[in-house]
């Protein structure tokens, strides 16, 4: 399981970097799906199979298909490749990489020193469901209203 965790983490990092360097938008999307699926494997190794299933179904399934539909609707065509090449000149990477690197170093500094091992006990659907419809039932209601608002907002915005 530990080997599985490190393998999935490596695949997640590599495919996320591949998303950043990708010129072709559909290829970038497929790398992103790979990254999300490997994060789902990381969830599974951390004893959260329910979260892993939801990651695969909702993120890698539903949300990414939504992206794919919109990319097909936009129908960017062949000229988008030259556009991307002209937008991503070499110098553009430097400042964002430095700033994000500083932020990452700060985050790692905060994380460092908490080196207890997490003994993995599977927290399955039963426990999550009991919590979700017990103490967190108000959050479920609010989330459903949020989804309704998102639905109405998307319908209104995409209307001609």
């Amino acid at each position: 399981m530990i080997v599985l965790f490190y393998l999935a983490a490596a695949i997640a990092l590599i495919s996320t970097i591949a998303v950043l360097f990708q010129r072709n938008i559909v290829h970038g999307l497929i790398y992103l799906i790979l990254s999300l699926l490997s994060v789902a494997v990381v969830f599974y190794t951390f004893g959260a199979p329910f979260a892993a299933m939801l990651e695969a179904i909702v993120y890698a399934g539903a949300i990414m298909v939504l992206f794919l539909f919109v990319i097909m609707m936009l129908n960017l065509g062949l000229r988008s490749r030259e556009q991307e090449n002209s937008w991503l000149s070499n110098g553009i990477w430097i400042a964002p990489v430095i700033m994000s690197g500083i932020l990452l170093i700060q985050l790692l500094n905060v994380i460092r020193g908490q080196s207890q091992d997490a003994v993995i006990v599977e927290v399955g659907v039963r426990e999550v469901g009991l919590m979700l419809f017990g103490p967190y039932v108000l959050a479920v209601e609010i989330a459903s209203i949020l989804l309704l608002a998102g639905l109405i907002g998307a319908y209104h915005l995409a209307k001609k």
Partner: protein
Amino acid sequence: MYSIPFEHGLILAASLFALGLIGVLTRRNVVFVLMSLEIMLNACGLAFVVVSARWQHADGQIMFLMILTLAAAEVAVGLGLIIQMFRRFKTVDLNVLSQMKG
């Protein structure tokens, strides 16, 4: 029964967050910017799940569910905005939105 150093899970989450931030800052294609935002949200959810595994609670997974809901709603509205932008400006370049006109 096995154990994973939970620091490494948090390091993975922080690295994914920083990579998503690089994507948001460098890209000019608005679809790629939205994808990088998804990477960042996913990294936050990963941190929640890792921490909930550390204390063997279900609370972190419930927060992950909330982040999932938020991401779905955000992507629906964001893609609607992208469609509207493409209709008006015929491009996915973010820089055209810097003018306050029409």
